[in-house]
C-alpha cells in the first residue's frame, strides 16, 4: 500500500469554469428565454404533462424528506446494536417481523427506499430490510384508512389488500434470503457521511440521500407524466372485458401511473369496469413497483438489483393478489 499523496497546493490556479459557473450561466439563459419557454408550453398536452410532473414532485417531496430524515436519524442516533436486539437472530424469522413492522410507519413509497437503505447500512439483513421496503408503503394505517374510504361497503377489500401486500413482502424477503446475492445490491460506502457530531452525521446523510434519491424521483415523475399524457384512458375500458387481460392491465397501469400509495385506492375505485381482484392487483403492485420506484431503487441499490427485484416483485404480487382475491373476494 502506498501512502496517499496529498496534491501540492497550487499557488496560482488556472481558471477553469466548473459546475457552479455552468449552473449560473444556464440559469441566466433560461431566465432570458422565459417568454419563449412559456410559449413552447402553450400546448394542452405539454401543459398537462408539466402540471402532472410538478404535482408528483410537490406531493412526493415531503414524503421523500420524511424518508431521508428517518434514514439520517437511523445513521446518526440509532446504534447498530439496537437492530440486533429488536430483530430475531434467525434471518428467516426477521423477514416477517420486519414486514409486519411496515404497518407501523405511515409513509409513502418514496420514504421507504432511503429508510431501507439506511437499515441495510446499519447491518440489518437485506432480506428483512427489503420486506420492510415493500410492506411499509402498502399496509400502513394511512393507506388502510384511505382504502376503506375509497371502497365503502367493501371492508373485505381492505383486508385483502393488507394480506396480499404483506404476503408479497414476506415472500420476497424469503426469496432474497434463499437466492439473493450480495453483489447485486450496492449499499454505498458511507464513511464519507460520518460527521464531526451526531447531528452532523444526521445532516450529511439526510442531505446526501435527498439529493441522490431526488434526482431519480424526477426521472420517475417525468416518465409518469409522459404516460399520463400519452396513454388515452379510453384504451382501458376495452381491456377490462377479459378477466386475465384485466389483471395484467391493472398491474401494468399501477407500474406506469406511479400514483402515491395513499391515493391509489381512489384510482382503483374509479376503474368501475374491472373486477375486485383486478383492483386488488392494482393496489398490491402500485406501492411496490412503479416507474418512480424502479428509478429510485436503481439509483439507491444499483441497476443490477433493480432489474431482478422489480419483475420478481410484480410476479409474486400478481400471484398473491390472485390467491388472496380468490379466497377473500369471491
Amino acid at each position, binding site marked *: 500500500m502506498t501512502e496517499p499523496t496529498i496534491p501540492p497546493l497550487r499557488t496560482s490556479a488556472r481558471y477553469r469554469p466548473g459546475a457552479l459557473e455552468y449552473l449560473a450561466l444556464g440559469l441566466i439563459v433560461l431566465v432570458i428565454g422565459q417568454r419563449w419557454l412559456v410559449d413552447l408550453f402553450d400546448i394542452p398536452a405539454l401543459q398537462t404533462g408539466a*402540471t402532472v410532473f410538478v404535482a408528483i414532485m*410537490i406531493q412526493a*417531496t415531503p414524503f421523500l424528506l420524511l424518508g431521508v430524515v428517518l434514514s439520517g436519524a437511523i445513521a446518526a442516533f440509532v446504534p447498530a446494536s439496537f437492530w440486533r436486539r429488536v430483530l430475531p437472530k434467525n434471518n428467516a424469522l426477521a423477514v416477517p417481523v420486519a414486514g409486519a413492522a411496515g404497518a407501523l410507519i405511515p409513509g409513502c413509497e418514496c420514504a421507504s427506499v432511503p429508510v431501507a437503505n439506511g437499515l441495510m447500512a446499519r447491518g440489518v439483513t437485506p432480506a428483512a430490510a427489503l420486506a420492510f421496503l415493500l410492506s411499509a408503503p402498502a399496509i400502513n394505517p394511512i393507506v388502510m384508512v384511505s382504502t376503506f374510504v375509497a371502497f365503502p361497503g367493501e371492508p373485505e377489500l381492505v383486508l385483502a389488500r393488507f394480506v396480499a401486500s404483506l404476503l408479497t413482502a414476506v415472500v420476497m424477503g424469503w426469496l432474497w434470503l434463499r437466492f439473493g446475492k450480495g453483489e447485486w445490491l450496492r449499499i454505498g460506502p458511507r464513511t464519507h457521511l460520518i460527521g464531526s457530531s451526531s447531528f452532523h452525521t444526521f445532516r450529511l446523510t439526510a442531505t446526501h440521500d435527498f439529493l441522490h434519491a431526488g434526482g431519480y424521483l424526477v426521472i420517475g415523475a417525468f416518465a409518469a407524466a409522459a404516460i399520463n399524457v400519452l396513454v388515452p384512458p379510453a384504451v382501458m375500458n376495452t381491456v377490462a372485458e377479459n378477466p386475465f387481460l384485466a389483471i395484467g392491465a391493472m398491474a401494468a397501469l399501477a407500474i406506469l401511473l406511479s400514483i402515491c400509495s395513499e391515493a391509489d385506492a381512489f384510482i382503483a375505485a374509479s376503474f368501475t369496469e374491472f373486477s375486485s381482484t383486478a383492483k386488488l392487483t392494482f393496489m398490491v403492485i402500485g406501492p411496490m413497483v412503479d416507474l418512480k420506484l424502479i428509478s429510485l431503487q436503481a439509483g439507491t441499490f444499483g441497476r443490477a438489483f433493480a432489474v431482478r427485484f422489480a419483475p420478481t416483485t410484480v410476479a409474486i404480487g400478481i400471484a398473491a393478489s390472485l390467491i388472496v382475491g380468490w379466497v377473500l373476494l369471491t
Partner: protein
Amino acid sequence: MRRDVQAIILLLLGGAVLRVTWSDAYLNYVREGMRPFLFISAGLLLAFGAMAMVDAIRQLRTPAKVVAIDGLEHDDDVDDDHDDDHDHDHGAWSSWLLLLPVLAIFLIAPPALGAYSVARETTNAIPPAEAKAPPLPPGDPVEVTLSDFVGRAVWDSGLTLQDRQVRMTGFVTPNPAGGWWLARLSIACCAADAIGTRIQVQGAPILPANTWVTVTGAWTPGGGTMSADAIPILVSSSVDVVPEPRNPYE
C-alpha cells in the same frame, strides 16, 4: 458534486416549494391539507441548503484540508466532476435533475388541469357511497358540487333533483358532439390522480374552453342513468363568467 452546487440546488428547491405554498399555487397540484407539510419541507430544504453552504464556504477557506478519500487527486476550490467526497458514489449527476421541477415552477408555473384532461376521460359517474342520496339542502338555487349533482342524477335517477334550481361552478369543456360540458376535476392526492366530472349544459351561449363559469339551472332527464358513462343534462337559466376559484379542484 461540489458542496456549493449541492447547496444551491437545495436552496432553489426549497425556494420553489416555499413559493408555490405561499402563493396558493400549490392548490393547482395537491390538496389543501398538504400545506403545513409543504411549509415544513421548504423549511427543511432551506435549512439543509444553508448548512451545506456554510460547509462549502468553510471548505473554500481551508482548501488544503480537501484530501482525497478515494485516492483520486482532488483540486482545492477548482472544480471538476470528480470533486468533493461524493464521486465514488455513482449517480451524483442525478441531483442535477432536481433543477427540472425548480425551473418548471419558476419559469413555466404549470396551471391547474382543465378541459384537455376532462375531454380524454370516458367514465364520468363513479357509484356513490350511499345507494339513496339524502334530500338536497334548502336554497333556491342551491349550491352543489358537480360530483354531487352527477351522483344524484345518474345513480339516484335524479329523484332528489326534481323541481330544484341548482348552482354549480366549473370550467367549460367543449363537447365534440355540440355545445359544451360544465366540468370540474377532483383529486385524491395530487393532480396525477385527477378524475373529471361533466354535465352537458343546454341553453347557454358558446364559450371558449377553460372559461370558469357559475351555472344556474335545473336537471332534466335524458343523460342516462345507472351507468358510469352517463353524462347528465342541465337546462341553464343563467351562465356567469367567474374568475378561477382559489382551489380549482373539487
